[in-house]
């Protein structure tokens, strides 16, 4: 697949809440086909950017293109989105959640969902109400990854999740990545164990992208992501 246009392009994109700029004249171009880490401290604009990409909020100024188009329902059909604080109906079992996905989400592959579930150790018959936060997070991730879409957006998929679930999610993602041409945007402030996954990095602070580029280049120039944070944010990175 030859994709030359960027998967996401922002030109002077701004979103204000009261006087505070959540996105502050953001200029950003993210190439297609990459696993992109969107990193930065809480409140840096990561979630606002993701909400703008999925059309959940309307920017005040600037231009935003997603898959070459303005965001809206047409582009959302091609996006798998995991919002932060995502929950599912507690009385559904994992299998019912996937069957829901198969009937309502365009291109949802039920067999793929079951395969991921087995791989990530998700019990299909268990109801979401009985699951730990980490188990529920795996179900939500599968709902995002099972449709065949060109863009997947995961907002803080590792936040507050136990080590075993995190390992299962990372393995599931690596396994998934090998067969598909897909762009994945992942926001996280939890960089341990995931930094090897990213091939492109966007560092955000105060509504702007303060650095973006190939992660190998970032490594070559500044060292590990931990070192990067110390250099760019001039303060100790808290996990």
């Amino acid at each position, binding site marked *: 697949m030859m994709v030359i246009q960027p998967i996401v392009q922002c030109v002077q994109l701004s979103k204000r809440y009261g006087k505070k700029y959540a996105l502050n004249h953001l200029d950003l171009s993210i190439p297609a086909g990459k696993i992109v880490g969107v990193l930065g401290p809480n409140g840096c604009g990561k979630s606002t950017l993701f909400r703008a990409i999925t059309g959940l909020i309307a920017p005040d100024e600037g231009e935003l293109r997603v898959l070459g188009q303005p965001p809206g329902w047409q582009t959302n059909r091609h996006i798998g989105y995991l919002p932060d604080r995502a929950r599912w109906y507690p009385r559904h079992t994992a299998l019912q959640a996937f069957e829901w996905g198969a009937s309502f989400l365009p291109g949802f592959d039920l067999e793929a969902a079951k395969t991921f579930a087995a791989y990530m150790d998700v019990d299909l018959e268990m109801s979401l109400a009985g699951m730990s936060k980490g188990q529920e997070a795996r179900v939500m991730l599968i709902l995002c990854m099972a449709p065949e879409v060109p863009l997947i957006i995961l907002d803080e998929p590792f936040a507050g999740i136990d080590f075993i679930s995190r390992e299962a999610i990372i*393995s599931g993602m*690596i*396994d998934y990545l090998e067969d598909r041409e897909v762009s994945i945007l992942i926001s996280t402030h939890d960089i341990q*164990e995931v930094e*090897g*996954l990213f091939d492109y990095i966007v560092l955000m602070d105060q509504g702007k992208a303060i650095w973006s580029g190939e992660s190998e280049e970032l*490594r*070559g120039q500044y060292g*590990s*992501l931990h070192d990067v944070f110390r250099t760019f944010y001039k303060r100790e990175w808290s996990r």
Partner: protein
Amino acid sequence: MEEQKIGSLRFKIDFSQPLYEQILDQVRSAIAKGEIELGAKMPSVRELALELRVNPNTVMRAYQELERDGLTEKRRGQGTYVTSSAERVQLFRTELASKYMDSFLEQMASLGISLSEIQGYLSKKYPNETGGTR
């Protein structure tokens, strides 16, 4: 940085350095040193990516370079194998060694160290060697 063992390959990945070159260099030297045998099956891209916790694309790029080196070959539907040609590995080893030598000599030259100083250092470092055959 811990050592990871995947089949007969050993890796030490440092996340503060570019990953592609590390994977490539470490597999190359494993083949050159004979740590992984001629004709042996390489771990799959997926397996290596999972174990090392890196993007499969990074592993794939390293595998493509190894194939261009002639150190590995892809067999349709079966995966990637180390070449069974001892000559090929020997040739690669010699090439790599002369590349390392050249860069060593360049660094010494940039420090203004003469050949006799290098020789003096070597004979001190390896006192039991006879110092050449001629």
